[in-house]
């Protein structure tokens, strides 16, 4: 009996290790995404951002986490205490569970389900209950309005995102994350280039789904204070934050897997571009070197040492990433290159996708709720349906009628864009005709 259990555990050691890694590392990653966001924001706004805790604010996330841990956990008197207590956990659990079917490189995946991508989408959609129940149980108008907005927004944009994903799935012909990436490898083109409209729809819808600006209405600080999180404090609040950033990683991973070639290197099947294999190591070396360059300029001895340590760590990573380039090592451990470099490229793409989120956040004002709904229902959803139709037609043209890729896909993309233009034009015309005057 006990032996059976142990044997069973040994047989699933790799998923177990990945799962523990995700649960343990993801909060840290989320913290550092917050730091990155603050740094990017500071850079765009002519400021420095956090500079005090650790060199260049490198320890800021840890300080923030500590502060939130020891902060008082206030539960409002009139709230529904059990649900108030439980709601943030739902959000975090769902966000983390969604990571389980995603493949960060061929080596790092918990489970390769045959409904993989749908599983990710479905589970991350359950996170909405955390938001809605948290907002409702706070017993505050701001929270409730934030929660209702959030629910309406998520349900509307999930449709568009789902249809965009269907477009990608049609191209891949499978739901398993691993096979989707492998199909893109065989194709030679990432699906973002084959179906750019689908990628665009998913980009917009994923921003809306993660409640990020310019669609951050559920937590619009200038209107609803903090939306559904208004009554939360301390670590429960931090859990919502963790869920939000984990969700960002999840949608970025879906987009990377489905549209940006997953763990494949750019131009993976073109031998001329093999020099790109050196990029992971070189990039790490570069950043490490910069750390060494900055180290003497730090004000305190400890910070200097810390900076050197970070530089050394990056150089060790660079060496590890360089190992697969040595043919002997690569033969010794089969799949080493795909495993390590795959993870690097995947994380790089996820990072760039999240950077796009940040960029948009600091550039755009916020939509109003009715405008958001109009954009979702009258533009994105019709367009996503047309997009699925277009991809289907292109596939039939290509596979059954023998048309070349180069004609079939650009043709349907152009047609879809035409529809997009028409939808935009019609919406604009309707807006112009509608004079918003106080009705009373």
């Amino acid at each position, binding site marked *: 009996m006990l032996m059976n259990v142990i044997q069973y555990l040994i047989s699933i050691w790799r998923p177990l290790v990945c799962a523990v890694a995700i649960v343990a590392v993801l909060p840290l990653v989320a913290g550092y995404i917050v730091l990155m966001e603050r740094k990017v924001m500071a850079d765009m706004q002519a400021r420095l951002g956090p500079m005090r805790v650790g060199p260049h604010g490198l320890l800021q996330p840890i300080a923030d986490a500590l502060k939130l841990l020891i902060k008082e956990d206030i539960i409002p008197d009139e709230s529904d205490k059990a649900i108030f207590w439980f709601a943030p956990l739902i959000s975090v659990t769902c966000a983390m569970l969604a990571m389980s079917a995603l493949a960060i490189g061929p080596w790092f995946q918990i489970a390769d389900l045959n409904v993989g991508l749908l599983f990710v989408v479905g589970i991350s959609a359950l996170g*909405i209950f955390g938001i809605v129940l948290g907002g409702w149980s706070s017993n505050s108008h701001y929270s409730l309005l934030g929660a209702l907005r959030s629910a309406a927004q998520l349900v509307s944009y999930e449709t568009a995102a789902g249809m965009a994903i269907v477009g990608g799935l049609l191209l891949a012909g499978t739901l398993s994350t691993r096979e989707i990436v492998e199909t893109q490898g065989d194709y030679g083109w990432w699906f973002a280039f084959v179906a750019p409209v689908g990628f665009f729809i998913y980009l917009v819808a994923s921003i809306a789904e993660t409640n990020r600006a310019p669609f951050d209405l559920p937590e619009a600080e200038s209107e609803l204070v903090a939306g559904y999180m208004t009554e939360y404090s301390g670590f429960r609040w931090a859990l919502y934050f963790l869920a939000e950033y984990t969700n960002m990683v999840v949608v970025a991973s879906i987009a990377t897997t489905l549209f940006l070639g997953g763990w494949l290197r750019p131009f993976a099947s073109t031998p001329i571009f093999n020099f790109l294999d050196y990029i992971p190591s070189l990039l790490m070396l570069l950043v490490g070197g910069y750390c060494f360059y900055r180290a003497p300029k730090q004000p305190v001895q400890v910070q200097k040492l810390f900076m050197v340590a970070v530089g050394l760590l990056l150089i060790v990573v660079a060496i590890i990433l360089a190992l697969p380039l040595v043919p002997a090592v690569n033969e010794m451990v089969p799949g080493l290159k795909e495993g390590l470099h795959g993870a690097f490229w995947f994380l790089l793409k996820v990072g760039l996708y999240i950077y796009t989120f940040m960029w948009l956040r600091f550039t755009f004002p916020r939509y109003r709720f009715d405008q958001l709904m109009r954009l979702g229902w009258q533009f994105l959803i019709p367009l996503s349906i047309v997009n699925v139709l277009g991809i289907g037609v292109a596939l039939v043209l290509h596979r059954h009628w023998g048309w070349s890729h180069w004609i079939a896909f650009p043709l349907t993309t152009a047609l879809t864009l035409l529809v997009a233009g028409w939808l935009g034009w019609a919406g604009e015309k309707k807006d112009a005709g509608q004079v918003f005057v106080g009705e009373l």
Partner: protein
Amino acid sequence: MLDQIIFHFFAALAIVSAILVVTRRNVVQSAIFLITALLATAGIFLQLHAEFLFIVQIILYAGGIMVLFVFVIMLINLDVSLHQIQYNRQWWLGFLLALVVGAEFALAIAVGRSQLALGEPAPASALEPSTQLVGKVLFSEYMLPFEVASILLLVAMIGAVVMAKKKI
């Protein structure tokens, strides 16, 4: 062995949550337990090698229909209904009748158990991956019902809008 444990866990979870759904006073709590019951059922689907149905259950039932329920519950003011009597006056009669229905089912299962060879399901390896299989069956033999179902959804959508809108 492990299968059995997981199955019993999910079954117990589903039954306990179902009981709580029909007995809770607070509608929001009922809805939460209904979600739990639905997710437990999804787990059982997974064990029965119905992966596609498992994910449909999560996306559509838990993620879609229940969001709608929770949304409506929050739109409607709850405080009044919390202080009302929760059960019918004839609740005992209904309860008895429902138990009779349950007993009939139990009897049917007990009688038919030997004749239906219920203990011997087809081996898992003999099945195609269920997603592809469902797709094939759905879009070949059951094409017409599928289209009818989509029209049903359209009708329901229009109906819901007509019902809920104040002024059309």
